[in-house]
């Protein structure tokens, strides 16, 4: 077995938390159950990884097999990477009979025709997600296994989730291969990025809870009613206002949990509006400014702003439109109408 493969396996095993190593090796399936039983999973990770490498040497594992362990690790811990969402477009109206083998063949062929030194791995999961791992090399060097790109694609949807490696120059090639293999004709990057892959999926697949008005009461309408204070001496002064805020908040954010985003960025290219007498700027040019909101869970914190009394309800639509518009990067320019304001660029 190649030394580079051995080193790669060793480093990949070291990444895994000690309690998870056994289950991941079982999912990997490369080592048999009897082989796994010879490893003592209670020793320090360094030793565990050495044992694993030893066993892999016995069966002469190659780099493709080693890469599968990396996919498994990233599938269990996808939130360690930053994912961007891309949208593909197609012109035709043909019904899509997605053929997985065809897709894989076309994808590999396209990539390999442009770049010989690539390692490509596919793995399908039950939720129709296809995970693709690509390690990039150059015409003269072998692929760098430590900076792979990941692509997650759900068949028959126009969305692709890409976690690009640092080597951004390979992105156009990757996009081209995806478009070709999936029978679309164009791809563009959406302004939507996050660490939480599942939340990105929730947003674009519209799996998060939206509030729609209907005549019939939906089953999940019981809200956790906070127990009334038993002490009758405590009177709620602003009860009406509080109820109004709750109602407006629920209309905007819905009932269920919000998708998890870490930041929202607004690039302002609006004119600085000052008192005409003060006339701060000589020239009338846009005041460039970047506003960034960051939080471990941005949408939940926005949802709790009004009830906590820190903002007026309803919250600005620039903040609340994030899941519906499926973007968290905005450019705000001047609106060219009679009332001065700002509009969000498409």
């Amino acid at each position, binding site marked *: 077995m190649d030394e580079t493969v051995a080193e790669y396996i060793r480093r990949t095993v070291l990444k895994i938390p000690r309690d998870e190593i056994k289950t991941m090796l079982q999912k990997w399936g490369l080592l048999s159950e009897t082989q796994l039983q010879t490893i003592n999973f209670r020793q320090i990770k360094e030793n565990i990884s050495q044992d694993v490498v030893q066993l892999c040497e016995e069966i002469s594992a190659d780099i493709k097999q080693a890469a599968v362990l990396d996919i498994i690790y990233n599938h269990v811990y996808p939130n360690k990477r930053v994912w961007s969402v891309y949208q593909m477009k197609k012109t035709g*109206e043909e*019904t*899509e*009979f*997605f053929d997985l083998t065809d897709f894989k063949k076309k994808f590999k062929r396209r990539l390999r025709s442009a770049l010989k030194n690539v390692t490509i791995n596919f793995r399908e999961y*039950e939720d*129709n997600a296809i995970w693709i791992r690509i390690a990039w090399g150059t015409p003269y060097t072998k692929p760098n296994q430590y900076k792979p790109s990941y692509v997650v694609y*759900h*068949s*028959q*949807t*126009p*969305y692709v989730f890409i976690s690009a490696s640092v080597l951004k120059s390979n992105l156009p090639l990757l996009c081209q291969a995806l478009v070709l293999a999936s029978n679309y004709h164009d791809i563009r990057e959406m302004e939507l990025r996050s660490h939480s892959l599942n939340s990105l999926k929730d947003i*674009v*697949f*519209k799996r998060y809870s*939206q509030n*729609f*008005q*209907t*005549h*019939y*009461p939906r089953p999940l309408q019981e809200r956790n009613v906070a127990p009334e204070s038993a002490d009758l001496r405590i009177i709620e002064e602003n009860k009406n206002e509080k109820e109004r805020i709750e109602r407006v908040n629920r209309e905007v954010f819905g009932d269920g949990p919000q998708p998890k985003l870490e930041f929202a960025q607004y690039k302002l290219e609006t004119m600085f509006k000052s008192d005409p007498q003060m006339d701060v700027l000589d020239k009338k040019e846009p005041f460039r400014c970047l506003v960034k909101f960051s939080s471990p869970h941005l949408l939940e914190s926005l949802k709790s702003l009004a009830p906590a009394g820190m903002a007026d309800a309803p919250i600005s639509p620039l903040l609340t439109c994030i899941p*519906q518009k499926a973007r968290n990067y905005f450019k705000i320019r001047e609106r060219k109408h009679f009332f001065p304001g700002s509009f969000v660029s498409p």
Partner: protein
Amino acid sequence: GASASLLCFPGPVMLFLAGVFAHLERLEAEAREIAVKQEKMKQEEEKRARLKAKVRELKLQRDKLLAKLRLQKKVKLREKRAMSDPAKSGARAVLEWKIKNVKATLQVSYLTGINGKRTKQGVCFCITTAYESTYLDSYYVHLLVKPEVQIHQHSVPTFIPLEQIAKKYLQTDIGRFLSVLSDHLNAYAGRKYQADQLEEHFSDQIEGTLQRNSLCNLLVFNYKLSSKSKTFPFKARLLYGDLCCSLPTEVNVSCTCKWMVWGSVWESGVGRPYCGSADGWGFFLVEFGDKREQAAILLRDKRL
């Protein structure tokens, strides 16, 4: 008697004394006047106090009477209401019942499959899917009507061709748009439900997992049939060509294993259909296509 004590005084002293007396008289008169005035004032004050007390008393009485009057009025009103016209209350009750009925109908209208509710900006339609006698998920489409009909918000999954359907029908015929969308959603929900049921109820016969795609219009799975200690492995591929249909348009069943017939190993004949029978099972093996796909058609003779 001043006359008795008429003493002899010189003239000027007499005049002086007379002046003093006059002054004293005057003072006496004044004092008397003041005393009378004071007495009068005292009397007036007493009178005023008495009158004030009386006013207070009268006011109290008046308040008591007013309260009594108000109470009487209330009682009268209550009696009046209780004795109200029975015909009028009946009409009101009927109206309330009618409103309740309409509300209940609206609530249950989702069972029809498509129902809508007016909103401030337009209409929110709810499409409820069902397969045979089971109700499945609901999907929402919120339409704006001004300046032109457009989709504001929706919860339709991305693999349903919503944009295509909207481009075709939304501007011209909203009813058709909803009906076509409902067909797509119902068919998808039906296919998904059938695939789930297949996995659940035949889990012992299916080998491995059921391979499907997002639209559930391509299912591939391996399953086995066993009879009299012999198991026959099959691979099935179901293709649902029509997205508005929950039944497949193309089915491929194939088997690539060797068969044990009558204790001997049997191998497929090339290019020829083979017929055979064993233990009441009759089978026809057909090879077709340039990839030499094999399909086995198994017949069971029920007489045996």
